[in-house]
């Protein structure tokens, strides 16, 4: 168990900058998630933490001691790979015992102690019946458990997971997510989890960092990031369906996004009148209602282009047209309302949940 501090870590390959200087602290025992689209540098950061790769500049500290120049074996971290990386020529037992068997002689356990540990971890992960199988005789979920077992058996200071669930089918993924949380609650090992899936990031992390183009965009608790994304990248990346981002003109009485009129939020920033801003609305906050009983102030009228039923909510994408401007927006259908494609509907957004961004810098405007 350890507190991990990353100080101005930077990585370049030739002239190409993979990671801009990053500073980040992961607390002792925390479940921390690094989330971002592919190519954002999150796996590189993980390799640097594991010691598989050397940073161009900066320091990595575990519990205050500098480990930047240490070999992977001296760092006492464990890493679960996306591909699991099980040793194909070894049985499950041998795979799980491997980290104990290759430990430095001074720390190596006796043979029967190793077997005890394997039995303990296998019992913990429900692998006891599979110990003599080889990896190729296991299902995806079982391989995943073996990979976890091999990582956990020597009680590492830091537990790294590189997209561990992305090779599993959806149902298994959900149950493994719960399993990971259970493991973390019981073992309390500092965990850094890398994923491109924002749903995983939202559900798993104590805190998360959103990465894009080699920079950390925002660090915080999942709910805080969801409620107040600091820039357009985070706003568009976190949450599904993605947030509507519309260009709007700021007026005294509110915001005008093409044909859609929105009430100006009470905490609206002090910006010049007539300024163009980007306004973000979460689809779950946008209400799509039948066009006939539109009593709503500021509702815009549009034509349904796409409907996506997702169980509890019916997502509707509508096109709003006021002769001069066309705005496409997605929202959720009012309870009981099932619009057809091509139908005329009323679209409205409440003011409390508007997010305003500067269209040139992409930064959030206002206090919240």
């Amino acid at each position: 168990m350890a507190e991990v501090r990353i100080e101005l870590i930077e990585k370049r390959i030739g002239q190409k900058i993979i990671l801009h200087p990053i500073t980040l602290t992961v607390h002792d025992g925390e479940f921390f998630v690094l989330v971002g689209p592919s190519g954002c540098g999150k796996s590189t950061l993980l390799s640097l933490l594991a010691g598989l790769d050397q940073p161009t500049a900066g320091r990595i500290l575990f519990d205050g001691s500098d480990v930047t120049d240490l070999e992977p074996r001296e760092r006492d971290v464990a890493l679960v790979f996306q591909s699991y990386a099980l040793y194909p020529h070894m049985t499950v037992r041998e795979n799980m015992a491997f980290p104990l068997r290759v430990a430095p002689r001074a720390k190596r356990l006796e043979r029967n102690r190793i077997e005890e540990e394997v039995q303990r971890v296998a019992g913990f992960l429900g692998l006891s019946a599979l110990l003599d199988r080889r990896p190729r005789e296991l299902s995806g979920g079982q391989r995943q458990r073996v990979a976890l077992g091999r990582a956990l058996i020597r009680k590492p200071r830091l537990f790294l997971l590189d997209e561990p669930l992305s090779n599993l089918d959806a149902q298994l993924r959900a149950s493994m997510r719960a399993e990971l949380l259970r493991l973390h609650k019981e073992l309390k090992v500092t965990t850094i989890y890398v994923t491109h899936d924002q749903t995983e990031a939202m559900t798993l992390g104590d805190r998360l960092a959103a990465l894009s183009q080699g920079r950390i965009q925002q660090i915080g608790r999942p709910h805080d990031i969801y409620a107040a994304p600091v820039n357009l990248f985070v706003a568009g990346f976190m949450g599904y369906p993605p947030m509507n981002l519309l260009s709007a003109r700021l007026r005294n009485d509110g915001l005008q996004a093409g044909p859609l009129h929105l009430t100006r939020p009470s905490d609206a920033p002090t910006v010049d009148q007539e300024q163009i801003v980007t306004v973000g609305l979460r689809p779950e906050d946008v209400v799509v209602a039948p066009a006939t009983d539109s009593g709503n102030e500021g509702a815009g009228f549009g034509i349904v282009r796409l409907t996506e039923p997702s169980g509890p909510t019916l997502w509707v994408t509508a096109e709003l047209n006021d002769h001069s401007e066309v705005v496409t927006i997605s929202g959720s259908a009012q309870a009981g309302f099932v619009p057809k494609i091509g139908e005329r509907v009323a679209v409205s957004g409440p003011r409390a949940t508007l997010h305003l961004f500067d269209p040139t810098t992409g930064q959030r405007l206002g206090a919240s």
Partner: protein
Amino acid sequence: MRRSDDDQAGSTMMVWIRAHGFTACVLLFVGLFCLGPVLWQAVTSLKPDQDLVRLPPLIPERVTSVHYDRVLLQSSLPRSLANSMVVAASATVTAIVVGAFCAFALARLPIAGKSVILGVALVTSMFPPIAVISPLYLLMREFGLRDTLVAVGLTHAVYSLPLAVWLLTSFFQQLPKELYQAARIDGCTPVQALLTIMLPLARPGLAVAALLVFIYSWNEFMFALTLTASDTTRTAPVAVALFPGLYEIPWGDLAAASLVVTLPVAGLALAFQRHIIAGLTAGSVKG
């Protein structure tokens, strides 16, 4: 009833010929072309001396083992075979051990100029042996290794090292990188990772490389001829070439000797064939 059975058998025969006839013909032709000389050699080795130079009959009427007796019991060929075995085995072990370490470094360790190193290794193997043979002879004489098996074995190992390095490098590169990284994180030093993870998984590659080096060393003639001078150090190909023939060429003995020399390598190739099946990595990475 019987006739229809026959017809049926005839028609399945026709189907088989139509489907596989061409392939069978080609295989038969290639087989005869390649094995014909060997067969002729075998026939010659069994003929008595006076029948050797008469053509009809093609198949010998009388069979004799006198050539094998002479080659195996009265000549120095058994000694030469033992020499060849020692030379080829030690050349193989040396080339594979050194080659595996080189290949591992080239495949997985952070080294600058990997492609240059591989290129230079390839260039060295392109020198014709005849170009290096006199300096090599002088070198071995300076080392006091002239007319020893060490000199031949070492030369063979050095000459086949580029091949071993190239083959093993590509085999190591084919192993998923994550396996090596996982081993490093699980606590291995690079060498430990090589020994416990990479080598067992590269077994098919090691077998192929070992087989090729062994065959090269077993068959190699010029270095062996130049670096040895006595019956006690000669390897088998040299011994066959220098077979005593005072007044006439002993065709029967030569045929028997060359078959005896070929047999171990042919047997080895067949035995190793089973190991050269890849697919050991199935299941390690998603699949």
